[in-house]
């Protein structure tokens, strides 16, 4: 078909069409019918209408190209009816206003549905291709423009709604169903209508309300009460949204409440006298703390505020605790206090702060801060363990033991100077093992496993060596007695523990003179041991041994005395003498004088244990003193344990010594770290070396930068490192 032909035909069709619509008034007449029907629908008078006829008329108008007339007619008619409705609504008095508005809205919706039914064909064909607003949407828009936005309704509607909400906030009962219908209408008209005509103002009024109310509350309530009130208000608003507002309003209105009631008064609440956060923490007010946490988490900076106050309070109380002179007297009590404090806050964080990780971190960093304020914390923690493992765990179930050990490990984790702890722990463990005082081997080993997982193999290898020595010694002794059984006869029983040098805390050992029968026995053991182990050297640690002696006193009282090796040496002298002077004892035994004094003090000056008598009868031991066997010694026990007067805590010089040893031990570790780092980096500047070394060693101790510098210099002297010739801050590794 060619194009001119096509044109011709098109022309003909148009001409033909014009002829068909003979009645020029056809469109007007049809529209009159439809217009009448619309009026009847609005007047609740539709039962007389024929749906089929109306549908067909609307169809015909569109079909015959009168769609535009139909559409504009609809707009006009509907506008008129809505203006009528608006007048009725305006006339409604007082409370009836909302009800009338709701009634008319329902009427309009019903009418709109019916009108859309009639005009369905237009809605389906004419409207999309002419990009007009569909009938339903058109009806909503017209309602909005002619009713909701009419000058006499718009502000009255808003005022009424806000007034009702205000009434409900002050405790009055309102018609929530009606409220929901009206709000729903605003939402149906489009989210912008809801927001502009209601929500915006609602939020402003609410902000004013809560600003004033929170001001009242904060003047007359304590912190806990205030938080309760704020929580209730917040829940009320959330409930209001669910009952009759758009769900999207929830975050907006809760933001208003949060800002006015919480964010604006945050600091004042936290620091409130006698009821603020610190008081809640002191008094373990889990419920109030939980409420504060849940409310503050909703506002920016809320949780950091709580956390900061908690941290500074914790640091302050912790600092007092670790520097309290009273507490320092009893290491076990000291550590128990730390553990109690930790338990208290763990519980608070668990119950009130929903196990918030950031709070746990704050707690940990606070503990780390104040535990290390006291340089004796490592020692005390080790003493605590010592106490527990000596006797504290008797009759305690295995799980409880684990719990206690775990808690100790937690404190251990906070220590910066873990190597100092290790030193003390080794000393205390050595004493426990040698004196046979440890209660539970399992508990000991369990703790060592924990230390190992925490700090690695290196940390515990020596501790494990100590356990091995104990075991080997048992076997050795069995071997010894099996070999010499016949020869030994009824000489005293000797128990030797062979300790590997290096595994045990070293003590400067000055061997004392043992009684003759003992030293003979010792020689036998030495030859047995060296006979089975070649290339070894044995030296006697007489300062660490113990002895059980049978003694018969003047009136025939028999006792078994449990004493130290030194004490044994002294007492054995009295088998052959009644009176001995201090000088004589010192010469005979060659016990170091400080040890001897303590030894004599414990034998002569402790009430109830004084197996010796001294002249003059003073508390202190003098060079000129004389000693006798106390014939009148009496005790209701057969076995008497004579303790040595030892300070459980270290004395000041001992402390210094331990400290020094720790410092010495650190040197090779620092050097090793420097060499490891330089080996991989080859060239590094001073600050970075310090940083890396500190990082590598921090699991064991906090390296002192000055000490690191000294170690670097020592390494330079020994040609491990050199300074860069052009940049003096750079170090170079020399392979």
């Amino acid at each position, binding site marked *: 078909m060619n194009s001119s032909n096509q044109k011709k035909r098109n022309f003909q069709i148009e001409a033909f069409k014009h002829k068909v619509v003979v009645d020029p008034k056809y469109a007007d007449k049809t529209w009159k019918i439809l217009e009448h029907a619309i009026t009847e629908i609005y007047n609740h008078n539709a*039962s007389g209408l024929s*749906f089929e006829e109306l549908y067909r008329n609307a169809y015909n108008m569109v079909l015959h190209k009168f769609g535009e007339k139909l559409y504009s007619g609809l707009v006009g008619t509907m506008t008129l009816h809505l203006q009528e409705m608006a007048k009725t609504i305006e006339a409604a008095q007082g409370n009836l206003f909302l009800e009338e508005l709701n009634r008319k809205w329902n009427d309009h919706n*019903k009418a709109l549905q*019916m009108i859309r*039914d009639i005009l*369905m064909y237009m809605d*389906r064909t004419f409207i999309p*291709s002419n990009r007009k607003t569909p009938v339903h949407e058109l009806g909503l828009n017209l309602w909005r423009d002619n009713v909701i936005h009419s000058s006499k309704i718009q502000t009255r509607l808003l005022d009424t709604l806000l007034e009702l909400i205000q009434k409900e906030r002050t405790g009055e009962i309102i018609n929530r169903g009606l409220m929901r219908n009206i709000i729903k209408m605003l939402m149906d008209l489009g989210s912008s209508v809801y927001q502009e005509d209601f929500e915006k103002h609602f939020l402003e009024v609410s902000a004013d309300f809560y600003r004033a109310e929170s001001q009242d509350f904060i003047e007359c309530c304590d912190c806990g009460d205030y938080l309760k009130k704020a929580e209730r208000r917040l829940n009320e608003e959330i409930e209001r949204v669910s009952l009759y507002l758009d769900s999207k309003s929830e975050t907006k209105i809760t933001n208003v409440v949060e800002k006015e009631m919480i964010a604006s008064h945050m600091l004042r609440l936290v620091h409130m006298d006698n009821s603020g956060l610190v008081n809640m923490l002191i008094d373990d007010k889990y419920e109030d703390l939980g409420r504060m946490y849940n409310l503050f988490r909703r506002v920016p900076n809320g949780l950091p505020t709580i956390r900061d106050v908690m941290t500074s309070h914790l640091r302050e109380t912790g600092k007092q605790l670790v520097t309290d002179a009273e507490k320092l007297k009893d290491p076990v009590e000291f550590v128990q206090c730390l553990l109690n404090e930790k338990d208290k806050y763990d519980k608070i964080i668990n119950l009130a702060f929903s196990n918030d990780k950031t709070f746990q971190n704050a707690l940990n960093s606070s503990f780390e801060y104040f535990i290390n304020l006291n340089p004796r914390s490592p020692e005390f923690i080790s003493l605590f363990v010592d106490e527990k493992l000596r006797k504290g765990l008797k009759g305690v179930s295995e799980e409880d033991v684990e719990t206690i050990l775990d808690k100790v490990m937690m404190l251990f984790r906070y220590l910066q100077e873990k190597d100092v702890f290790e030193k003390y722990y080794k000393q205390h463990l050595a004493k426990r093992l040698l004196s046979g005082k440890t209660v539970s081997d399992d508990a000991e080993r369990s703790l060592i496993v924990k230390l190992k997982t925490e700090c690695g193999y290196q940390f515990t290898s020596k501790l494990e060596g100590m356990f091995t020595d104990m075991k080997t010694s048992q076997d050795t002794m069995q071997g010894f007695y099996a070999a010499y059984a016949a020869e030994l006869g009824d000489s005293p029983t000797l128990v030797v523990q062979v300790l590997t040098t290096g595994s045990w805390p070293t003590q400067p050992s000055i061997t004392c003179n043992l009684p003759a029968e003992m030293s003979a026995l010792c020689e036998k053991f030495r030859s047995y041991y060296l006979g089975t182990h070649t290339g070894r050297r044995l030296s006697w640690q007489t300062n660490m041994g113990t002895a059980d002696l049978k003694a018969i006193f003047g009136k025939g009282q028999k006792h078994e005395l449990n004493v130290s090796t030194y004490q044994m040496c002294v007492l054995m002298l009295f088998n052959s003498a009644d009176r001995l002077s201090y000088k004589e004892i010192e010469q005979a035994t060659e016990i170091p004088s400080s040890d001897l004094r303590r030894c004599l003090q414990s034998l002569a000056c402790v009430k109830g244990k004084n197996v010796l008598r001294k002249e003059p009868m003073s508390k202190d031991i003098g060079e000129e003193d004389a000693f006798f066997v106390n014939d009148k010694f009496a005790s209701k026990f057969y076995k008497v344990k004579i303790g040595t007067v030892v300070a459980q805590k270290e004395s000041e010089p001992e402390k210094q010594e331990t400290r020094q040893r720790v410092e010495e031990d650190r040197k090779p570790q620092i050097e090793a770290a420097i060499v490891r780092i330089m080996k991989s980096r080859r060239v590094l500047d001073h600050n970075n070396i310090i940083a890396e070394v500190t990082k590598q060693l921090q699991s064991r101790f906090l390296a002192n930068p000055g000490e690191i510098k000294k170690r670097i210099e020592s390494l330079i002297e020994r040609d491990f490192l050199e300074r860069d010739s052009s940049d003096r801050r750079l170090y170079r590794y020399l392979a």
Partner: protein
Amino acid sequence: MGIQKDRVRFNVGGKIFDTSATTLANAGRNSLFGAMFDENWDLQSGHSTTEHFIDRNPDYFAVLLDLLRTGELYLPSNMSEKQLYREALFYGILDHVRSAKWGPFDGNRLRLARSVTGRAPGDGTAIRAGPDGGCCVAHGSMVHVYDWMLEVHPPINLDYQRVNDAGWIDPESIVISACERFGTGDGGMGLFSASTGERRYKFHVSHENQVKSYTAGALSFSPDYKLFSSCKGRSNEYGIGVWDQVTGKQIDFFYEPPGWSLGEADKLQWLHGNNCLLVATLFPRKDNCYIGLLDFRDKSMPWSWSDVGAPITDEKRVRDAIAMEESSSVCVVNEYEDLGFMDLRRAAGSVRWSSRSRLMKGKMPDEPCYPKLALHEGQLFSSMNDSISVFCGQDWVLTSRLRRTYGGSICDFSIGGDRLFALHSEENVFDIWETPSPPII
């Protein structure tokens, strides 16, 4: 619907029909029947024996009533399809007619429903199926739009520039891309109404806040309302542009990296699972083939393949490519309709050619058309000369072949709205293939 008695009597144009309210309920609320029996209109009050008069043709009413009763459409041969559609539109049940007319798409059950002869001169460029069963056909500078009833709508054009590609955003909107006219800023890309052919807006390309004229090539659409097009600007602004379908605003641009080709791409395919765009530039537009996946988030090309440097024989030359997300592979085809595959999970290696598909060897027609590929719900389609092959299964076995002798080679085809449209190159004819509704038992 508030009907007390189920029985309903109609008098349609003088003929009495008895039916039930349940049957009528199948028409839905947005139909004449739905409105008529809504309680608002209260047509049953008391006199249930009253017949409802409808002033329409009873013969077509009978066909439509049967459709409501059975869900199937049967039109006696002496009746007009067009008139049926008009009646259905009157009753508001045209959608029912459409969905009864053909069944859910299955490449192995297709039958030729109709061939439509167009009147545009010039070679066919592209045919694109619409989402509701319509299609648009590009010839030269014109795009003709057909609705699902295959009624032709006013044609659309972009300043009468040569059209490169077209695509549907929704049943009412079509995007066409066209060449630019030298120096005038014409051409580019525009969005058009499918029913009236009016242009709603043009898609602009800006570089450094300056609007540039450009030639738009291949198109692709993503489900999150993005539109992609290959763009060739005059001052070396080659690359892939990204626009928002709703606002028409340009939101991104991927510049062509050196040694690669994007701006003249023949094919774009949005891969939603990978969040990537497949871009293929192929022979003969370029001497070499370039296939790559673009990631717009970090402007990277996570996967790419090219035959630069490889010995070129016709058998190895890729003529079309399509990504198959389910098997993480790319399928390519050479000019003998051999299929080849590449793995998207591995850095591009060589094409694994499948010898199974060697079907065309030696039988080349006088005027060959290069093969094209399409993928639809696990079925792979490939057009070659005058037929379309359907491949199924994991190994892509040839299962069906669609062929018509009339119209010459197939230059393009497209699947959508449960229909397959094939455009022929020698005559201005396109075929519509449909799946018949399922058998009665």
